[in-house]
């Protein structure tokens, strides 16, 4: 069974530039999550989808972050414009129930 796929794995951009991350969850998993992991810390939830509906986006900085999950499968997380403080690892996870399965993450560096 293929795991959660994320791309790109690494991204370096200058501040004020836009950036997008893509996630393909495990087949059949209706729930999809985006997390941000700052250096030396645990992941923090940004948004949770049930199929194509965002059911918890309370931690998503909506002034610059947006996300979508078209057709309830793949998802894209976008930042526009990026700030220095956005440098982190962005993790995608999917779940059939209580267990969450994580992708390898995208390491974003904003210079």
């Amino acid at each position, binding site marked *: 069974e293929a795991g*959660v796929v994320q791309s790109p794995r690494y991204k370096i951009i200058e501040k004020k530039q836009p950036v997008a991350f893509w996630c393909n969850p495990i087949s059949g998993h209706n*729930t999809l*999550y985006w997390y941000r992991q700052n250096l*030396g*810390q*645990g*992941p*923090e*939830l940004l948004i*949770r989808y049930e199929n194509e509906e965002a*059911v*918890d986006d309370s931690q998503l900085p909506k002034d610059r972050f947006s996300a979508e999950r078209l057709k309830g499968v793949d998802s894209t997380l976008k930042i526009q414009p990026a700030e220095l403080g956005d440098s982190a690892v962005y*993790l995608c*996870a999917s*779940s059939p129930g*209580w*267990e*969450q*399965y*994580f*992708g*390898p*993450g995208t*390491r974003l560096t904003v210079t």
Partner: protein
Amino acid sequence: AQSVTQLDSQVPVFEEAPVELRCNYSSSVSVYLFWYVQYPNQGLQLLLKYLSGSTLVKGINGFEAEFNKSQTSFHLRKPSVHISDTAEYFCAVSTSTSYGKLTFGQGTILTVHP
């Protein structure tokens, strides 16, 4: 709201020695507890989980954890570690009123020395 505290940021240990990584949680409702492992430049992998039933749960790679409700703890143990166990370990909690929302601890870096 729930919270998790991992009491040790780093734990050095020699190969074949036992190890315990400590985790305490705070919640006013029923909890569901998880331990994840993260190897360098990789995502998180589920080691074990407590949802209900027996308070002693066994996971992959020889790890086990015990849910102690009175002490609000969920410590991770392994009787004999290997070099390959070197990684960062995260304790996480979800609750009966926050389905799908995992709150993670700060992580414990386990370093196994030969």
